[in-house]
């Protein structure tokens, strides 16, 4: 079974802090994704990556950056956390090549005070 893990289930940070959210998948998937999930807004794509060192902006990249130094790991970075970044963050991975079912991690609930 594909396993996607996220470094924290719950995280509380202060405004202005730099925040790192880590995601690891163990199935050698090419693609990895970061979403945020908010009530009434559904899942919104922040960034995604097709390969190591590659990244593409999603629908809401402002205030975020990402890093993919190894195939299995995809990090989401909040350069200077703000209260409107309080959300549930979900990481996903997929095999690619049109078989693009995405496998999700358990999520990180981030609260920015």
């Amino acid at each position, binding site marked *: 079974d594909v396993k*996607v893990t996220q470094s924290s289930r719950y995280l509380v940070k202060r405004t202005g802090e730099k925040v790192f959210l880590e995601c690891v998948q163990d199935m050698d998937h090419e693609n990895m994704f970061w979403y945020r999930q908010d*009530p009434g807004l559904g899942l919104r794509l922040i960034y995604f990556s097709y390969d190591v060192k590659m990244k593409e902006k999603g629908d809401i990249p402002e205030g975020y950056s990402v890093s993919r130094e190894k195939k299995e790991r995809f990090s989401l970075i909040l350069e200077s956390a703000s209260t409107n970044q309080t959300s549930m963050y979900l990481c996903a991975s*997929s095999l690619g090549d049109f078989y693009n079912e995405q496998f*999700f*991690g358990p999520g990180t609930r981030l609260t920015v005070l």
Partner: protein
Amino acid sequence: GESVGLHLPTLSVQEGDNSIINCAYSNSASDYFIWYKQESGKGPQFIIDIRSNMDKRQGQRVTVLLNKTVKHLSLQIAATQPGDSAVYFCAENWVNRDDKIIFGKGTRLHILP
């Protein structure tokens, strides 16, 4: 508690009855569709998928129906059980959109005892 389900349409079904969850997708060029289930406090989990060259696909207790004429997708769950309580998302993808997926807003399924 889980806040992702706030402001979502809710379907209430008696335990043991069949459930039908509907989804209108946005792009007539979409050629791959997925249903996800998200339980409280967890990431979305793949249920079943269907490609545009099919109009019906069956899994264990679940059936997905695709009507391309009206851009409509439905998920049928047979003999609904308490464990089926969750938020259900449809998702679509189309060639030339790489491996990104567009998610619907979701429907909460509530099982009545």
